[in-house]
C-alpha cells in the first residue's frame, strides 16, 4: 500500500506546480530566433557557445571562419529578451564586457543594427554572420539555429 506523501514532498510538488504555472505566464522566450548566414556549418548551438560568441570570447566557427556578430540597440525590447532569455544576462552587462574589450583595444564590438529587417538582410549578406529576430526568417540565405 502506498504511503501518504510526507508534508515536505507535498510542499515540493506545490512549489513545482507554481513554478510550472509561472513558466506558462512568463513571456515566451522561444519567440526569439537565432539566425546565421547559410555558410555557417551548424544547425544547433549550446547556450554556453552562444554566450561565448556574444561576449566576444569565441570569435571562430568550427570551420575556422571568423564570426560576425550583429545586435540591436541596448534599449530594443527584442535585444533585452535575447540577452536575458538566451544568454542569462542583462543588456547593460553585455555592454560592459564589449566596452572593456573595445576600449582596451583587444577586439571589435558587435555591429549594431537599427531594425529586425536590417538584421535579416545583413545576416543574409555577410559570411559567418549571426543575429536574432522575432519576425519570420523567410530568407534562403539564412537559417535558424536551435538552442541546445
Amino acid at each position, binding site marked *: 500500500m502506498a504511503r501518504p506523501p510526507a508534508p515536505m514532498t507535498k510542499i515540493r510538488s506545490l512549489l513545482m506546480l507554481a513554478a510550472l504555472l509561472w513558466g506558462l505566464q512568463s513571456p515566451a522566450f522561444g519567440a526569439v530566433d537565432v539566425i546565421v548566414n547559410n555558410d555557417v556549418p551548424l544547425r544547433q548551438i549550446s547556450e*554556453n557557445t552562444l554566450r561565448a560568441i556574444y561576449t566576444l570570447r569565441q570569435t571562430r566557427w568550427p570551420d575556422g571562419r571568423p564570426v560576425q556578430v550583429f545586435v540591436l540597440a541596448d534599449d530594443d525590447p527584442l535585444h533585452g529578451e535575447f540577452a536575458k532569455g538566451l544568454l542569462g544576462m542583462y543588456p547593460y552587462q553585455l555592454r560592459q564586457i564589449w566596452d572593456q574589450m573595445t576600449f582596451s583595444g583587444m577586439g571589435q564590438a558587435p555591429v549594431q543594427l537599427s531594425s529586425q529587417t536590417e538584421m535579416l538582410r545583413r545576416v543574409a549578406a555577410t559570411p559567418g554572420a549571426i543575429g536574432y529576430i522575432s519576425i519570420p526568417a523567410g530568407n534562403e540565405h539564412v537559417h535558424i539555429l536551435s538552442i541546445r
Partner: protein
Amino acid sequence: MSTSSRFARLAGVLAALVGAAAAGDPLLQSNTLLLQGFAAQSLITTSHNNYFGQTQHALGTGLTEAGLNGVWRPHDGLLVAGQVLYRRAGKSDQQGVRLDYLQAVWQPLQTTDGGLELRAGKIKIPYGLYNETRDVPFTRPSILLPESIYFDTVRNFALAAPGVGLNAHWHGRRGEWQANLAAVRPGRLDAATEANFLNVDQPGHLESNASYVAQLRWTSPDESTLAALSWVHANANYHPGPGDPLGPGKLLFSPWVLSLQKRLDTVTLTTEYARAHIRLWNFSQPIGVSVTTRAWYVQGAWRFRSRWEGLLRYDAIISPLKNNPLYALTGTPYYTRYAKDWTVGLRWDVTPSVMLRAELHHVTGTAWLSRLDNPNPSAEARVWNMALLQASWRF
C-alpha cells in the same frame, strides 16, 4: 614637445588609420574601422583638502575626460587599435591631449576554444579589473575608481607603456582562462608619480627602463563569476637635477592584486585586495625605505531599474609606516599614510549615450591625495567629505 604639435602628430596617426581603412576592400566585413568615443565633465566639492584642483569650499571643474578610440581589422588575424585621450585632473594631470595607446594585435592562432595574441606598440597594462579602461567613465563602477588600488597619482605610470605583450585564452565547459604577460618600458615618469614616491616633485626625475606585468583571469561559463590575479614589477632610476638635495637613487614598485566579482541577477559584488611593495634606496641618504602597503575594497552595485544603478563601497589603504624613521624625518602626520573611504553613488543612464552620476565620499586619512594639489601634508584635514557630479556622453 608642445601640446599643439603633439596633437598634430596624433591627428596624423588617426587620419592615416581612417585613410587606410577607407582604402580597404569594402566587401570585407572584417576590414572596417570602428570608431567610438566619450566626453565627461565632473563637478567636485570638498569640505577640506583639494581633489583635482581647488575644491575646498568651492565647486571645482578640474576633472575633464574625453577620448576617441579606433579599432581596425585590416585583415583576418590582425587588429590595430588606438586611443587619443584628453585629460585634465587638477595639478596632477595637466597634459591635455595625449596618445593613450596604439597597439597592433597579431592573432596567429584562433580556434573555437581559444587563441593566442601578441601585442606590440604602446600597450595597455592589465592590472586589476579596471586599469585598462580606467579613463572611460562608462566602464567604471563610479566617478572615481577605488583610489586605494587605482591610485590616480601613479596612473600615468601604470596605464600604458611602449612594450610587447602575450595573451593566451582558452574556454571550455568550466569557463574561460586568460593569461596576459607584458614587458614594458615606461620611460620618464611624470611629476605626479614622482611626488607620490618622493613626497614632492624633486628637481631630478625618475625613469623606468623595464617593468613586467602578469595577469591570470578566470570567468565562469555563465559570466556570473570573475576572478583575477595581477602582478607588476616596476623599476625606476632617479636622475638628480641641478641643485638637487637627493643623489642618484633606485625605486622598486611591485604590487599584486586579487580581484573577485560575483553577479547575482541585478546585484554585482566586487572586491579587490592589493599588496604593494615599495623600496627606495641610495638617493645619497643614510637610510632607505622599504614598505608594504595593503589596500582593499568591497563594493556592491545594484541595477534597481534598467537605467538606474546604486553603489555602496568601503575602500581602505594602510601603510604600516607609523614608526618608519624616514617618514618621521619628513614630519608628515601619520594620517597622510592611510585612507578609509565610504562611497555612495547613483548612476542614471538617461539614454544609451548619456549618463549622469552623483557620488558622496566620507574619507578618513589622506594617503591618496595628490601632493601637487595639496602641497603641505601637515595642513591636510584627517577627516573630510567630497561630493561629485559627472555628466558623460558617448558615441
